[in-house]
């Protein structure tokens, strides 16, 4: 919503700086996008008259003019426009003037300098409409009306000594009444503590308009009563379509509307004043396009029929459907109601007779139409915000009055007014005490009623048994007011939110509820980020390509109906998709070794039964890659090491690792099944704890690696945090270490590669558990070579000490032989040392 402060000052008696007005709007009405004073932009531009015209001696396409502006000698200017004549009035840009158009479009605004064009000096410039920011024409110098006063600053003549304020439309979403200057004036007046009274033509108007000379037939039928609560219209004859006078053009330009001709401009002017969109139709075109009539303009408000089309004023052809409301003649649409007029009935220079329409359309219907057809006009912007049907008539009558005063046409019909809205005045009971509680204020009844009356509310104070309340009736244009809270807001706003003393709420001291996921995420970040891993945050969106590259099924993904691009059209089913992609990008930046992780939600197409919403789980995914290492050992083990660091920090023990190739796919939860293809089945395992399957850790699958151009040494893991938080950490209790000397013994076994390290370790631990020992088992080395082939050697280091006495050599020997016997018997292992 753009407004001119000069126009504002015509409605409200204020004597404050424009800067202050901007501030007040910002603090009491809504966000101001920008404000600027046009005067500064038009500095050093004056009205001048051409007094001499000559050909350029050296250039066919240039003319040499002399102009006067009431000061000093005539000034010579060279111009490309050769069509100007002596006596024409122009806007003269003095040397040093800035071209207004360039202020908004160029980084360095264009400053006029004295120049030499093919040997003839030029001392300034005569501006085109575009250079003056008053239109699009930049091929010709703009010729001003004959009566333009020579020597007057251009800004003054064009009423540009004005501050333009743009209020964010979003802030006025529910305030249709603030889309006219009248509404803003009313608010500003109340903010300044002044009573505002809407002008007579807005509140009390005379409907008894009579045709002056001729009488034209207009017949209106409303077949869409439910969404067209009011339709008013009037016929005009003897219409003189011409360029609008300066005041009108100037007003529209300042409000961001392009002048067209006097009739169209006046409809837009009413919209600027009160936010009521008007529409002018060419009466003769309406009749000539209608095969069923010769002397009556038929206007029918109805829903469009499927596949009906209309050529809009924007020269685009729109195909309509049953949900679009149109204005039609007896056969076909001539306008899309409340949104855009039709080209067929457009008012142009030849128009002699006009139907002027001022109607009210339902906000929801208009919004849907603009969304469906992608048309965003000033009229639709206003109708979408719920306008007051009561202002149809004042809008129509005010336009007619100006047209009559300017002698642009004569009234040629009575007023047509089809009204279907019957809305009782809404009365809301306001309890001052409640209002003060909600706002945190101590306003008196007088203060409250004054604010409301200044905004033209009707108020009535009632009292009964020491209790006071106020009966409040909002004015008809305040269609946003429904409940007492809406009025609290008005009072808070006008009083000034910033005049409210602030105070913290009083609350019982209770600790917040535990949120396990939030806590575990924090712990994991702590561990990983302190272990060389970088946390990343990635889009939830991926493209189909990502599914192909990872061997994933894209049928399991949620698809976006309105994606920004094909690469962002699906919701990822695993965070690994993003990490694989980002690993690739970082390798391209010549990163050699890194570990990157993300904690986030991923979506598998699956719903929660009762809410019909997708199941949302938090996952931790991590990828690690190293281009420098030259090894045949699997990155599985580095990935697992990261994972174990996390488990150790969380106090989680007894983790079970089963190779994918040795696991039954049927038993796996869906999110693990989904990512199986990302891993090497012989070199990645399912992680489970206490029977809960948490995720996968391991080496990235050969083809996934290739598809992402990852180096050989690339591993990853993904675990489900919702499952992880279900696992109870083992309770840690302090145990005293024995005081007796500690023994250390290294043991080396040779066995089949198939034998699991953990099984062996468990055997050793079980044997140690039976003794009265404090002990520790460590792995020193796992070895194999070509000679050993399918066998490997594991070297353990045992440490221990007895709680009651020194554990002597013979006892150690017995213990070791127990271990060896067990391993040799059950695992076909051979003890080497």
């Amino acid at each position, binding site marked *: 919503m753009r407004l001119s402060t000069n126009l504002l000052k015509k409605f409200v008696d204020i004597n404050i700086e424009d800067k202050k007005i901007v501030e007040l709007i910002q603090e009491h009405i809504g966000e101001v996008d920008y404000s600027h004073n046009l005067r500064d932009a038009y500095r050093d531009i004056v009205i001048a008259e051409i007094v001499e015209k000559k050909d350029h001696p050296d250039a066919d396409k240039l003319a040499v003019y002399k102009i006067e502006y009431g000061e000093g000698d005539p000034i010579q200017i060279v111009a490309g426009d050769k069509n100007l004549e002596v006596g024409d009035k122009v806007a003269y840009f003095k040397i040093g003037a800035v071209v207004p158009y360039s202020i908004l479009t160029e980084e360095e605004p264009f400053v006029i300098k004295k120049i030499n064009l093919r040997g003839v000096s030029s001392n300034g410039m005569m501006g085109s409409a575009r250079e003056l920011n008053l239109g699009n024409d930049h091929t010709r110098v703009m010729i001003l009306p004959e009566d333009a006063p020579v020597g007057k600053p251009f800004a003054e003549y064009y009423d540009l000594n004005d501050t333009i304020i743009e209020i964010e439309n979003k802030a006025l979403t529910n305030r249709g009444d603030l889309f006219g200057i009248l509404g803003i004036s009313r608010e500003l007046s109340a903010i300044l503590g002044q009573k505002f009274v809407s002008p007579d033509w807005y509140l009390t108007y005379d409907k008894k308009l009579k045709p002056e000379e001729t009488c034209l037939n207009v017949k209106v039928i409303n077949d869409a009563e439910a969404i067209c609560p009011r339709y008013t219209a009037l016929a005009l004859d003897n219409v003189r379509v011409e360029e609008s006078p300066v005041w009108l053009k100037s007003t529209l330009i300042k409000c961001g509307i392009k002048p067209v001709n006097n009739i169209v401009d006046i409809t837009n002017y009413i919209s600027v004043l009160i936010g009521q969109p008007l529409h002018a139709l060419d009466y003769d075109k309406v009749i000539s396009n209608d095969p069923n009539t010769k002397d009556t303009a038929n206007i029918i408000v109805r829903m469009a029929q499927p596949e009906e089309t209309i050529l809009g004023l924007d020269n685009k052809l729109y195909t309509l459907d049953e949900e679009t409301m149109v204005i039609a003649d007896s056969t076909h649409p001539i306008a899309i109601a409340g949104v855009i007029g039709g080209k067929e009935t457009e008012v142009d220079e030849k128009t002699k007779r006009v139907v002027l329409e001022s109607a009210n359309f339902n906000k929801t219907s208009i919004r849907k139409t603009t969304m469906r057809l992608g048309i965003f006009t000033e009229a639709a912007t206003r109708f979408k*915000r719920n306008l007051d049907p009561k202002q149809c008539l004042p809008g129509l009558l005010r336009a007619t009055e100006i047209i009559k005063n300017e002698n642009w046409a004569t009234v040629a019909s009575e007023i047509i007014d089809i009204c279907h809205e019957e809305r009782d005045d809404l009365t809301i009971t306001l309890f001052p005490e409640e209002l003060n509680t*909600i706002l945190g204020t101590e306003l008196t009844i007088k203060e409250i009623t004054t604010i409301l009356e200044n905004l033209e509310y009707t108020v009535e104070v009632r009292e009964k048994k020491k209790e006071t309340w106020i009966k409040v009736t909002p004015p008809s244009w305040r269609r946003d007011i429904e409940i007492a809270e*809406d009025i609290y807001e008005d009072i808070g706003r006008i009083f000034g939110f910033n005049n409210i003393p602030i105070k913290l*709420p009083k609350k019982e001291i209770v600790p917040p509820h535990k949120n396990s996921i939030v806590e575990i995420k924090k712990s994991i970040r702590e561990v990983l980020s302190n272990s060389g891993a970088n946390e*990343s945050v990635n889009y939830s969106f991926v493209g189909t390509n990502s599914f192909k590259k990872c061997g994933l099924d894209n049928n399991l993904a949620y698809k976006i109906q309105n994606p920004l691009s094909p690469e962002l059209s699906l919701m990822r089913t695993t965070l690994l998709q993003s990490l694989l992609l980002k690993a690739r990008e970082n390798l391209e930046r010549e990163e050699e070794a890194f570990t990157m992780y993300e904690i986030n939600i991923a979506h598998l197409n699956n719903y929660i039964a009762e809410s019909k919403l997708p199941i949302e789980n938090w996952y931790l995914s991590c990828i690690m890659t190293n281009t420098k290492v030259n090894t045949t050992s*699997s990155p599985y083990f580095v990935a697992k090491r990261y994972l174990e660091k996390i488990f150790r920090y969380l106090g989680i023990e007894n983790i079970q690792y089963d190779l994918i190739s040795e696991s039954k796919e049927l038993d796996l939860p869906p999110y693990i099944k989904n990512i199986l293809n990302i891993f090497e089945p012989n070199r990645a395992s399912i992680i489970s704890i206490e029977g809960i399957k948490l995720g996968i850790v391991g080496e990235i699958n050969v083809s996934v690696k290739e598809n992402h151009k990852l180096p050989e040494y690339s591993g990853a893991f993904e675990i489900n945090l919702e499952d992880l938080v279900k696992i109870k950490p083992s309770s840690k209790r302090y145990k005293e270490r024995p005081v007796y000397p500690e023994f250390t013994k290294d043991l080396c076994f040779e066995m089949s590669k198939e034998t699991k390290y953990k099984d062996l370790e468990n055997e050793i631990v079980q044997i140690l558990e039976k003794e009265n020992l404090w002990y520790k088992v460590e792995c020193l080395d796992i070895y194999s070579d070509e000679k050993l082939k399918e066998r490997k050697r594991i070297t353990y280091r045992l440490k221990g000490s007895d709680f009651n006495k020194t554990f002597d050599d013979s006892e150690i020997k017995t213990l070791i032989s127990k271990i060896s016997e067990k391993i040799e018997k059950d695992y076909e292992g051979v003890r080497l040392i």
Partner: protein
Amino acid sequence: MEYTHKNLSKIETSFNKDLENLTYAELREKYLGKKGFVTEALREIANIPHEQKPIYGKEVNTLKTLVKENLSEKIQQNREYTSKPKIDPTAPSDINEDSQIYNEMLALKGSKHPLTKEVEKLLGIFSSMGFDILESRQIDDDYNMFQSLNFPKGHPARDMYDTFRTEDGLVLPAHTSTMQNRALKKFGPPPIAVVLPGRCFRNEATDAGHEHTFHQIEGVYVDKNVSLSNMIATIKASLERYLETDLKVKIQPAYFPFTEPDCEFVIGCPFCNMTGCSTCGHSGWIEIMGCGMIHPNVLKEANIDPEVYSGFAWGFGVDRLAMIKLNIDDIRHLRESNLNFLRQF
């Protein structure tokens, strides 16, 4: 040309035959290995006459894609895609493994993401003020995103939120207010004090200042006799603690269907002492969030009696706060996962 073309069709025929009989690894070796048929055919391009190169190149590439696609399909079908020997998944390291690799990886410069770091800090502050935490959903329904927040169907304010929708009609939340109704029900009856952090989405083109994906934290406070005055004081106190400085604050009117009155919270720029700098756009003020008193309809929808209770809510973008604090000039850096960026934090 004739010869080579025939050759390519031959490879294709034999591949189709082998597809049934050979394992993934065998197929790979035979066709895409160093001496594989397709690899050889690719090499052959050097010997093709110049003018025929484009056609041959195209054909051989089509063949390569065909072979690759079939191979990856085979992976999915059989899961018999590797010739790599089994490892012992329970072992602490691989056979003959050099522990140097671990030490090197674990000694890299790790980092927390600046966004989550700020979120953690903010949640810590709210938690210390007694607020519960409930994280936001990333796919939600129209009821939670709009209807429960007093946006009936067709409400023009819905246009303020350029929402993504899934093909099955669900909504990607455009604000964390999508959790308000749930939070009010979960933690009710009042007193309720809860913050709702989460990822949000808006369907808008990205540039240095705009992202389609961003992070918000919403706060909700409901009790008896809660006022707008309480709201300003609460938000001010939390921001002062977060920015570790005293702040000048003001609030401006705004419009949200789910609050009444609705406001914009503005702070005096703490970076230039309100003298004007690039962070505050040389105005001395920074608009930091939307806030307001919770609309009675929103309370009612969550079975809280607005005659008895009142409350306030506020919501802000963490991206912007983090950017201001950390001097990040382009919002896109946050989700690019560029290690040069990540390692700075």
